[in-house]
């Protein structure tokens, strides 16, 4: 059954038990108080009154006997007055006893007392009259006779008193019995209340407080747990933090979704570009080859030669654009090998020498020591550098300088790295396009494909490195690339 009850139901049930036990306990105490009062009022109070009345009857009876004897001894009428007063007291006592009596047995005893006393009173009047008449001898004889009647009344009064005493004792016993029952009940109620409270406490601790504490201290160290204080407040803080985290995560998710959509669009554009580029490349190659063939048989004047060269260059440019598109859409698989970045720099500059000269650009390598070797694809790194060099050349239309600074340094998040800073003396990248500079197909140049920096970044990222734009005093565009150095086996 426990399994079917929810935590809320269990707590309500236990609270109801606790309240029920307290209610029943309090009700029983009230009932006991009222019943005790009733017992006192009915049994005990009337018993005591009857006992007092019986005692008064006895006293009045004894006094009457005494006054009669005193009158016999000195004949003083004053004793008869006192006798009369005690006779009235006896009658009053009988009246009170009659009122206080409730059982047949009491009534029967009182009736016997009344009958015997009436007879005794009549005979005593005879005795007194004989004494008044001076017939002391007959009076004394009669006086001796009524002693038996007096003894019988006295015995009845004693019997009545004993009866009252036994009734008081019975009431007392009943009171004690009720007290014992109530004490037992109270002990049971206290135990039940204690049990319910313990169960409730255990349940609240195990199923509410402890889980609350665990939730509030989840993932925190021992020191933080001790300093936590109120669990509910700590949990509240944690929930606030979680809500913020959820908000952050949602924001990041939305950003990721946007990036994903953007990436999908780019992939589609890339695929399309690759298809177009592939289709263009075939006839373009044919044109290029035919142009070379044509060149051999033509005897051109200066103007024709200039036109021919421009056509050749433009075809070469087209070829580069097509190549970039294809490379962007179908990046080659990395062929990793242990290589030296410094050697890659030297080789690339060697390959680019002709281009650099044609642009009037001087490349200056700033190197203290050759960079340590690393595992990378040297061809891809050459392409990375070539892209940046071509970018710089195209930016510096009137010539300039390219500074390539090499250094081994620790980079945050990557550790020891081989780093390159490639800066030129060109106009630099305007601040408003800095964020877009690495996006594919973004170009600030009239003839650019917008893929050079994008491909460069992809190459470094595929090597697990970082590539970013930097600002350096007195320089134009400045790029920083870092590639993690792996430990030699």
């Amino acid at each position, binding site marked *: 059954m426990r399994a079917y009850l929810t935590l809320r139901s269990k707590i309500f049930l236990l609270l109801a038990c606790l309240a029920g036990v307290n209610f029943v306990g309090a009700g029983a105490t009230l009932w006991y108080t009222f019943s005790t009062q009733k017992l006192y009022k009915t049994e005990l109070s009337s018993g005591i009154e009857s006992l007092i009345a019986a005692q008064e009857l006895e006293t009045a009876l004894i006094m009457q006997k005494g006054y009669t004897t005193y009158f016999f001894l000195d004949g003083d009428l004053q004793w008869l007055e006192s006798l009369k007063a005690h006779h009235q007291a006896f009658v009053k006592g009988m009246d009170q006893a009659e009122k206080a009596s409730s059982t047949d047995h009491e009534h029967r005893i009182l009736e016997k007392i009344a009958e015997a006393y009436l007879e005794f009173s009549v005979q005593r009047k005879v005795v007194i009259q004989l004494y008044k008449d001076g017939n002391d001898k007959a009076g004394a004889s009669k006086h001796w006779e009524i002693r038996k009647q007096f003894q019988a009344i006295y015995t009845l009064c004693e019997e009545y008193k004993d009866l009252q005493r036994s009734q008081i004792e019975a009431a007392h016993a009943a009171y004690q019995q009720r007290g014992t029952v109530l004490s037992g009940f109270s002990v049971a109620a206290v135990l039940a209340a204690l049990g319910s409270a313990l169960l409730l406490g255990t349940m609240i601790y195990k199923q509410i407080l402890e889980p609350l504490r665990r939730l509030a201290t989840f993932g925190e160290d021992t020191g933080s747990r001790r300093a936590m204080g109120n669990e509910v407040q700590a949990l509240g803080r944690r929930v606030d933090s979680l809500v913020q985290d959820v908000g952050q995560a949602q924001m990041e998710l939305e950003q990721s979704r946007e990036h994903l959509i953007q990436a999908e669009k780019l992939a589609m554009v890339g695929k399309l570009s690759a298809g177009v580029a592939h289709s263009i490349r075939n006839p373009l190659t*044919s044109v290029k080859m035919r142009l070379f063939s044509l060149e051999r048989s033509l005897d051109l004047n200066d103007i024709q030669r200039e036109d021919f060269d421009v056509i050749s260059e433009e075809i070469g440019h087209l070829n580069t654009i097509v190549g970039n598109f294809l490379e962007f859409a179908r990046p080659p698989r990395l062929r990793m090998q242990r290589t030296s970045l410094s050697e890659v720099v030297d080789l690339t500059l060697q390959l680019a020498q002709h281009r650099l000269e044609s642009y009037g650009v001087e490349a200056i390598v700033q190197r203290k020591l050759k960079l340590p070797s690393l595992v990378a694809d040297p061809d891809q790194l050459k392409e990375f550098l070539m892209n940046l060099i071509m970018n710089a050349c195209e930016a510096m239309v009137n010539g300039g300088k390219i500074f390539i600074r090499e250094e081994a340094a620790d980079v945050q998040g990557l550790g020891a790295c081989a780093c390159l800073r490639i800066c030129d003396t060109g106009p630099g990248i305007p601040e408003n396009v800095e964020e877009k500079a690495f996006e594919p197909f973004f170009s600030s140049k009239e003839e650019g494909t917008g893929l050079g920096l994008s491909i460069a970044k992809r190459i470094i990222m595929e090597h697990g490195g970082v590539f970013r734009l930097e600002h350096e005093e007195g320089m134009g565009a400045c790029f920083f690339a870092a590639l993690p150095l792996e430990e030699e086996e």
Partner: protein
Amino acid sequence: MLGPGITICVADPNPRVRELLRREFSSLGCNVEMAGAAQEVVDKCLSDHPPDLLVLDPEISRADSSPILSRISMFMPGLPVVLHAFPGEALNHPAAHKAAAILEKGESTHRLRDVVSRILNERSAASGAN
């Protein structure tokens, strides 16, 4: 060595390039056979009169599940193959090591002619020595 009696097979998906190369090699007196599809290349190489050299653009077997260069190397191990491919693709070609030479497409045909001539000379010298 380039001249009459030498048969060169030009395999290229672009008919204009095929025609240009045919003209170039024919002008030297060579017999030129042309193939525009992978199966044509295989047929010509396995014919009764196979070529002395194959100028191959690997793009020709782009849709072919079995790379043509590997197939030719398997059936005609003695046939020299000059890979004439687009820049960047020639070196990355998985069977590049099986080629006698690799040339980037789009340059002057002089370079191709020189390379083909050198290979044939080397072969001729090698067979003469044997």
